[in-house]
């Protein structure tokens, strides 16, 4: 983009290509380009050097959410959801590590009772983080795990509970029903729980992320999104369309496989990465 000396048609065409290659998607890219052209006109500028700031401002606006802080009766319950392999279990380790570092008493609950060695994987993370751990063994009912983890969390004065769930494709109705049941059980045991349902999205995912968000949101409501694997070359541009359509806040990004590899999401960083 830097090679252009004015914001002419070829500049906007090149930008459209950059956005689509970043997985922004045709329609959200068109909307974004309209807004950007509007901003450039308002600012009375045709200088591409000014463009970085214009994009930053526009994305900051798109990603802004009227963040409502709900009053939470402890323990705060965080439920991790998402399709297979996106990084739910590893992200729990990262979030738990953060919570632990801020002095909270953290409980990690092994709600994936289906996949081979899912419980072992999470237990290793819980030990590394230094958090409490609860599991019921393979093939236990995930709703029962949720219920009993809630029990333990309340009884032993935990500040926050992270509940892992099995990866599931959003199109599998029975698995989405299972998720709804887990949510009902949590709420029944501790009204208001889960306080945060976090949808984990993989930055390498294309337009299917929109379908994932839609169906998970319809099933249990998505409170936050964490975008993982941004340490690769994928840009995660689908979150632009998701922000435009659903307004769900993107709270963190995953930048690696260690428990420290988590960073708060900022629209400006994202804008910067899009153009790099």
């Amino acid at each position, binding site marked *: 983009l830097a090679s252009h000396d004015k914001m002419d048609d070829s500049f906007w065409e090149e930008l459209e*290509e950059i956005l*689509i*290659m*970043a*997985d922004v*998607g*045709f329609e959200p890219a068109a909307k974004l380009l309209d807004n950007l052209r509007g901003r450039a006109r308002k600012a009375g500028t045709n200088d591409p050097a000014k463009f970085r700031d214009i994009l930053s401002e526009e994305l900051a606006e798109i990603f802004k959410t009227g963040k409502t802080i709900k009053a939470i009766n402890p323990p705060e319950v965080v439920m991790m959801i998402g*399709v*297979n*392999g*996106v*990084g739910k279990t590893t992200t729990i380790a990262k979030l738990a590590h953060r919570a632990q570092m801020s002095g909270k008493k953290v409980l990690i609950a092994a709600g994936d009772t*289906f*996949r*081979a*060695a899912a419980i*072992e*994987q999470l*237990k*290793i*993370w819980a030990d590394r983080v230094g958090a409490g751990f609860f599991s019921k063994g393979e093939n236990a009912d995930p709703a029962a795990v949720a219920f009993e983890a809630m029990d333990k969390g309340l009884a032993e004065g935990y500040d926050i509970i992270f509940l892992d769930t099995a990866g599931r*494709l*959003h*199109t599998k109705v029975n698995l989405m029903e299972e998720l709804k049941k887990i949510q009902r059980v949590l709420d029944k045991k501790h009204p208001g729980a889960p306080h945060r349902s976090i949808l984990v999205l*993989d930055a*390498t*995912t*294309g*337009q*299917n*992320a929109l*379908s994932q968000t839609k169906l998970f949101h319809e099933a249990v409501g998505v409170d936050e999104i964490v975008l993982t*694997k941004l*340490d*690769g*070359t*994928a*840009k995660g*541009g*689908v979150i632009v369309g998701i922000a435009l359509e659903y307004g769900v806040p993107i709270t963190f990004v995953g930048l690696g*496989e260690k428990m420290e590899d988590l960073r708060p999401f900022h629209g400006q960083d994202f804008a910067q990465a899009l153009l790099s």
Partner: protein
Amino acid sequence: SLTDRLDGVFKKIRGHARLTEENIQAALREVRLALLEADVNFKVVKDFVERIREKAAGQEVLKSLTPGQQVVKIVHDELLELLGGETVALNLKGKPAVFMFVGLQGSGKTTSSAKLALKLRREFKMRPLLVPADVYRPAAIDQLRKLAAQLDIQAYPSETTMNPVDICVSALDQAKKDGFDAVIFDTAGRLHVDEALMEELANIKAKTSPQEILFVADAMTGQDAVTVAKSFDERLDLTGVVLTKMDGDARGGAALSIKEVTGKPIKLVGVGEKLSDLEIFHPDRAASRILG
């Protein structure tokens, strides 16, 4: 569907006897949108649409089809050809036959390794050895060992203290001694831009000469599929691709992007979490799915 959208385009244009430069233009726009929506790579779409334009221009509309259907047929046939026309078989040569699974984190390598082991036994009456070569991910070795146990298939006793290259070399040695027909290496997920880990894969290849190096890609992968596949292919000279999680609603355009940029055949498709959920890749089904 694309056919409906194209019929809509042609309704507005009069004179449907022949596909002309003009009426093709609007139709190609719909094709381009459909392919981008399906996650086919931007540059691959550009080249593809150009080829369709050349093929379509001047064609007579067949009596049995609407112009929209005609264009879809041209697109479908072209997609089919690009995706590899027909099924490419697994290379089972070697005593033992050596398979290596590689790919990004979370794409489905461990599950696909176990699925392949089951397929080799069921369909080809082979006795496979599953080799956990991921010493980094917590409980990765446990995961493959558990899947192997479920199948009553032997797993090499890897430990996280071992080096993945040594694991693969020793496992191949043991497989030869004990008369296994096949050896399957499940490697750790890694980024194509991680020099050290890509070097590890190159070393495993150098020391074990797998006759199948299978790149495992998630069907929902977006534009980045091209960059990743190209990188793995340049480094390892892949022999095939496995597309996983095709039981979802991802259109799977990554399949076309990967095939176009590497030229390597898509051999297998993961269609579920059960170990029997592994199918041969059907180019015609993939083509229809990409077009939506």
